[in-house]
């Protein structure tokens, strides 16, 4: 299969250089003025023809719509800002679909280096809620570089693995793990355990998709897990507290209610009180009355579960599964290893974040501060998820293998 979008480009009537060789056309596509044209004339027909891309797009747009409704319950003011976030996010998505992903791929290491620099810089930024995760930009926008780092990491691993289709040897795994450890280490230093946790998980998903020996992967995982308890003393006190309070939940001490488990307990109350069919507006009133403080961020799932009950919560879960299934389908129908591994990486990154978040709000695992993709309130996060979705769509529309 050929790997160039040039081959199937058709000259537009507006293009004065229609009769020129494809190479020239390609060069012109880098001109930003013609990106929209190119999208309109060449990508749209393809997008329309790609049913799975619509499934993907549909699921995330539905999630965004639900997000607006849920954030409005928490705070109407935030909901208005969230509308802007989603608007910007959609522009980011379109921009991410426009250039062919492999051209973007060329800059992937540079992108990674840039995000690493940002991660270093954010350590010097003033602390918010006790950790250095955000840049406070003028206009009150909080920018979280780790969101970008996740994408950069996935892309760079995919970019590396594209040349090494058979990652059968253990030595081939060294570079991917190094690529993981760099951003993950920095994120751990800024004490964002939840986000850092996503990196190895996404890496594993990508290595599995790339065809690494499961034996090796399991062995590495076992070694890492056996070393992990040794890392316990390195954790911050509040992180230790979270883990401890998780295990002593059946016998709650005062520690239970000191912030970390308090939120989780409240979230359980909110979800449980939703019942089968949800409490509708009354549930919304409860949340506003202080049942769930900070409900628009990490615990947005509880808001939905209160209002729409078990059925609504199950619906959300199904939407995410559909989203992930679509990602895997796109990956499955992409021959190009870079595209395939990137789609798997981005998809599983988002999916794992979702699973961890829901497990956290339902009280299965300790509270790790990560948001629910597409649903939680947040500007840089929405933009990053839209960027990831755009890249997945990019692969979907460009590199389809005939089934």
């Amino acid at each position, binding site marked *: 299969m050929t790997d160039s979008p040039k081959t199937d480009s058709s000259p537009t009537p507006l293009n004065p250089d229609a009769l020129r060789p494809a190479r020239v056309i390609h060069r012109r596509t880098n001109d930003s003025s013609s990106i929209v044209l190119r999208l309109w004339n060449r990508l749209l027909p393809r997008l329309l023809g790609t049913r*799975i891309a619509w499934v993907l797009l549909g699921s995330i747009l539905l999630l965004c719509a639900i997000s607006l409704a849920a954030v409005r319950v928490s705070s109407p003011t935030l909901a208005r800002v969230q509308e802007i976030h989603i608007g910007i996010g959609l522009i980011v998505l379109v921009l991410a679909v426009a250039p062919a992903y492999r051209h973007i791929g060329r800059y992937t290491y540079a992108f990674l280096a840039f995000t690493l620099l940002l991660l270093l810089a954010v350590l010097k930024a003033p602390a918010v809620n006790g950790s250095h995760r955000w840049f406070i930009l003028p206009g009150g926008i909080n920018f979280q570089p780790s969101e970008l780092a996740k994408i950069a990491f996935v892309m760079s691993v995919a970019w590396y693995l594209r040349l090494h289709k058979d990652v059968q040897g253990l030595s081939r795994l060294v570079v991917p793990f190094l690529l993981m450890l760099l951003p993950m280490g920095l994120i751990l230093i800024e004490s964002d355990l939840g986000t850092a946790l996503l990196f190895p998980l996404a890496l594993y998903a990508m290595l599995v998709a790339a065809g690494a020996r499961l034996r090796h992967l399991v062995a590495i995982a076992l070694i890492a897990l056996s070393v992990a308890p040794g890392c316990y003393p390195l954790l911050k006190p509040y992180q230790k507290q979270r883990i401890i309070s998780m295990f002593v939940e059946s016998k*709650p001490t005062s520690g239970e209610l000191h912030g970390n488990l*308090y939120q989780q307990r409240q979230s359980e109350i909110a979800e449980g009180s939703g019942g089968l069919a949800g409490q509708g507006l009354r549930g919304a*009133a409860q*949340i506003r009355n202080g049942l769930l*403080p900070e409900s628009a961020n990490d615990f947005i799932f509880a808001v939905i579960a209160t209002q729409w009950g078990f059925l609504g919560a199950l619906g959300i879960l199904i939407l995410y599964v559909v989203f992930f299934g679509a990602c895997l389908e796109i990956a499955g129908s992409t021959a190009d290893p870079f595209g395939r591994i990137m789609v798997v990486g981005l998809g599983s990154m988002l999916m794992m974040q979702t699973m961890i978040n829901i*497990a956290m709000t339902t009280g*299965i695992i300790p509270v790790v501060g990560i948001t629910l993709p597409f649903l939680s309130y947040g500007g840089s996060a929405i933009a990053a998820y839209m960027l990831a979705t755009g890249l997945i769509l990019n692969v979907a529309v460009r590199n389809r293998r005939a089934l």
Partner: protein
Amino acid sequence: MVGFLQVLAAMLKRRLILLFTLALAVALILAVRLYQLQVVQARMWKDRARSFSYRHLVIPSIRGAIVDRQGRFLALEQPCNNLAIDYQAMNRDYVWITRQAIDELKDDHLTRAQIIARLPATRKQIAARLRRLPIAIARHCHLPLAKVLETLDIIRKRMAFLRQDIWTLRYGHDKNVRADVSPADRQQDVDLALTQGLNLLEAHEAHTVVPDISDKVAFYFQKHSRRYPGLVVVPSQHRVYPFNSVAAQVIGTTRQVTAAALRKNPFVLPRLVPGSLRDTRGKLKGYLPGDNMGAFGVEYAAENLLRPTRGVELIRLDGKQVPQDYRAPIPGRTVRLTLDIKLQQQLQRSMLNPQTHLLYFHGEMHRAAVVVLSVRTNRVLVMLSLPTYNLNRYHHDFSRLIADTQLPLMNRAISSAYPPGSIVKPLEAAYALTVGVIEPNTVLNCGAYLLPGHPNIFRNWTYPVAPGPLNLVAALEQSCDTYFYQVGMKLGLKRLVEGYRAFGLGSATGIGLHEETSGYLPPAQPHRSQFRITDWAIMMGIGQGPMAVTPLQMANAYTAMLRGGVWMQPQIIEQLHRPPPRLFHLNRPDLSAVRRGMYLVVHGPNGTAPVLRMGLPVAGKTGTAQTAERIDIDGKVTIKKGDDAWFVGCVPANQPKYVLAAIVEMGGDGGRRAGPIVKNCIQLMQQRGYLPQAATP
């Protein structure tokens, strides 16, 4: 469907199926957990969530009044102005200060930009003013600063109490939360929860710092409201005692709730379920820190009747605040006393008037107590204890009152026991007649002293004069000690003590006031030598020796005798139930001799109380009881050795309706010192229509 098959087909070739299966498995776990939370345990979680959509509004109520037998108010709640402080201001809440600062700047008609520019400075100013508030309150209300700070602390405790209540509603399900956590940790939890959504309505209300401020102070604080942010004058009520010092020790007063009462009977909110307010009366009647409770007297004894029940309204927090359930506050019951406060007031006035020489002898006021009991119902008409004090100034004067060696706080009618002296003689005679030790006509020699050859012990009060042989009536008339030494000796200690006990001496009457003392009687069979027992029997024959009684006990014993051996519990609080009367055997036909003797005490030629001769025939008995000196804890003699003057009278003599007992501490001669007080009281009772002016034939 086709799409799904395509997905499967595409992934089967690769390892993506593995990833998808893993994702599905995790999603399934989450779904199961959600099912458990939202379907299986839904009811439990809904219960807990209710506290976030419902809230209680506590409605204050007022304490019951105390009235006398004719409905005159002895204690009641009256409207007043309280100085209150906003809870947020008290804690110098940042948001509150900011809002206050903005309001203040808006009042000055500043532009938005100007407000923003001046906000930090204004905020600082307000914070500084808030810091100075306690000092300002102390200065303008003339209170010590420590007192103001203490009050603020009590307000904080009160809030913690309410918070704990709501806390229990939400998390009380977790049994371990209450059991395991130390109180300090719990407080920390509750404080934390308050910052995280446990927001009390009371936290946005003003709490009283100084109750009942004068109009001048109220006006000052209202006029300078800007200088004192967070201070408000709120209309309220406070306890007023219209009769000031009359029956002060009986009525009693209120105090802030004690820690013990708070622990025993705390205020507890009902469950947050509509319809659950019905069965929680007892808990709503409980105390909150800072509440008032009776301190002593009737206020304390009838606390259960007087204490109000707070009302509760259940509202749904949906912005409309429509009551979902309502329970009206129940004001405390009005407690009716059997006293006639006007009669007591007049009696107190005449006794305290130095011109009447009822209590003032040689320019010195004596301590005294008067009890008037109705014979038929055994209700207390007068219970007077002097010196007394102004109830309305009790808290103000407390340090002075508690240090006063005259013990004005003591209710002498019930909580002070005195040697009875001769006033026991009619009781003793009635019992001796019943037992058969003497006959009404028994003549015994009334010598100057009992034992021949021992003129220094067991003397008659007439010593060295010896009246000679006397019968019972004459012995009572003259109050012959040697006669009753012999009666005591004939009865023996065992029977004598049993007799006195039958009349209710030596044990509390159970009138319901908690200050009551039981007095003292020795056990009927003490482990003592034979001589000592006889010794005691002889001494107790004239009401001396090891026995002490209260004026109420004495009056009560007389009514029991006059009813012919029917002992009844005296009553002062009408609502308190009394046990049925206790009957004891008295030989009724022989009682006429005793009453004849008591009549002659006043009207006989040799009677000891001729002072009581008046239009209405009065019977009675004088008593002049030798009293030991009283020594305080420092070993200092506070009251020197002397004689307590007693008089117990029955009017009218032929058909007694009332028994009056009066004691003047260290008064000396019973007839001359206690008699006039009883006479004065009888005259007042005649004026008020309790007694006729002259005997009815």
